[in-house]
């Protein structure tokens, strides 16, 4: 079994899983406690538009995705305040528009149709070295930003109105959080694909939340759970010769279901 680890592609896959889990554990915790799962869904589907644009312009599709996700995050944050639109509505609009732009650009791009399936469902076993470096940089940005702003981010996600009254820069902090979600989403597209990004952001943090009443501990548990799920999923998918992204998510979902069942039984 461990002979698999001697292959570079397999080492890269496990490493990518670890990096993604660190980002997911940190950002997913805020996403879950602030109830922003749907926001993350909207942002992640906006990324599809960026991937399409990247192909059309002949640049790295992930750079296009990065531009689109950050753009979508900033637009939603601004519109919620300035145009007084419900976040719910904005999510729907951004979600559909991002997908439509992606399909359109890929259609008008001459030549071979790119492997869209790979972006939708991801393939962690094919992560190249260069993407690992990009992920490492993004993880460093996330860890540093959350480390510095931790108390502010907790205050703003816990009680936005009170944070306003004590004159914290609420709008700016929320925008920073949205941008961090966008960065995480781009990174996760490599690992599990757009469709499953939401699950990997949500499930480890959701399980972790059942076990602790502190944000810090919740982040730590979510990171460790993410690493366990991705690594298990990668091994399973290699052994059973099944898609890695779907396997990782199903492993996570099974663990979440297990925790819920256990909790339910304990109450009854």
């Amino acid at each position, binding site marked *: 079994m461990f002979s698999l680890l001697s292959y570079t592609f397999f080492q890269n896959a496990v490493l990518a899983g670890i990096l993604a889990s660190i980002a997911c554990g940190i950002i997913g915790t805020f996403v879950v*406690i602030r109830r922003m799962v749907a926001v993350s869904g909207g942002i992640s589907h906006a990324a599809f538009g960026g991937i399409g644009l990247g192909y059309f312009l002949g640049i790295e599709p992930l750079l296009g995705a990065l531009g689109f996700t950050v753009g979508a995050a900033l637009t939603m944050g601004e519109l919620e305040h300035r145009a007084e639109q419900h976040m719910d509505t904005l999510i729907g609009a951004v979600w559909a528009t991002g997908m439509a732009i992606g399909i359109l650009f890929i259609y008008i791009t001459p030549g071979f149709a790119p492997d869209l399936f790979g972006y939708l469902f991801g393939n962690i076993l094919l992560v190249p070295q260069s993407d690992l470096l990009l992920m490492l940089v993004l993880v460093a940005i996330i860890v540093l930003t959350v480390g510095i702003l931790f108390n502010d981010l907790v205050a703003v996600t816990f009680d936005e*109105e*009170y944070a*306003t009254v*004590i*004159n914290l820069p609420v709008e700016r902090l929320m925008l920073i959080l949205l941008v961090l979600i966008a960065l995480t989403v781009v990174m996760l597209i490599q690992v599990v694909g757009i469709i499953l990004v939401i699950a990997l952001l949500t499930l480890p943090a959701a399980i972790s939340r059942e076990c602790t*009443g*502190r944000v810090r501990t919740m982040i730590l548990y979510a990171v460790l759970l993410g690493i366990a799920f991705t690594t298990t999923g990668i091994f399973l998918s290699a052994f059973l010769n099944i898609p890695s992204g779907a396997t990782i998510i199903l492993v996570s979902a099974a663990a979440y279901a297990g925790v819920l069942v256990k909790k339910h039984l304990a109450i009854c």
Partner: protein
Amino acid sequence: MEEVPVIEVADLWLKRKGEVILEGINLKILPGDFYAIIGPNGGGKTTLLKVILGLIPPDRGIVRILGGSPYEKRHLLGYVPQLRTFDFHYPVSVREMVLSGLLGRKTGILKRFNAHDLVLADKALATMGISHLADRAIRDLSGGEQQRVVIARALVGDPQVLLLDEPTVFVDAPTETQFYDILGNLARTMTIVMVTHDIGVIVSHVTKVACLNRRLFTHDSQELTEDMIQGAYQCPVDIIAHGHPHRVLREHKKEE
């Protein structure tokens, strides 16, 4: 010499979707007041507090807090929002939540809490009688305990003024008396402004009462006059529906 008001509201108007929510409000709260603003649900009580805190911009009128604008001075007030607006499932401990009340006074990028902050938090917890709950998660507390934590968060920076919005909604009857005793003690050292639909409250501790139902009826004393109640509640049947008819009427007879 006239005292400088800690909160002053002059000719305040607020409209929402063409409907007047607050109409020509004039209010002066002086240092040491324990000021209760009562009125029916939907009468604009919470909205008035939010305008005072600069959370909702008024259409007309002026709000002054401690001699400055709401934006300049609001972080110096202790604000206790309505309990039902909270997400008490948020994973935060009692001590952490109380400490967050100090964030507004921290400067610089790194806002870490130091030993002095911890002492302030412990003091606020002791004042509210919940020192033993410091390390518990807020989601594991009862409604009454949660209410005390929210007040402790407002108290942690030793504010001159405490603003409370419906502080007894989730507090059961026996703890309510105890609760008002704590507020009564606090009133010795700070100005308290409390918004409530609970008319029974005004019997104890409170020094001034106003009734708010779009317009504000003030009397600058703790007595509720017939005018104020009639004005705010429109008809006496409403008062009876609120559950404290005898107290209100007795108060009223004493006055005559």
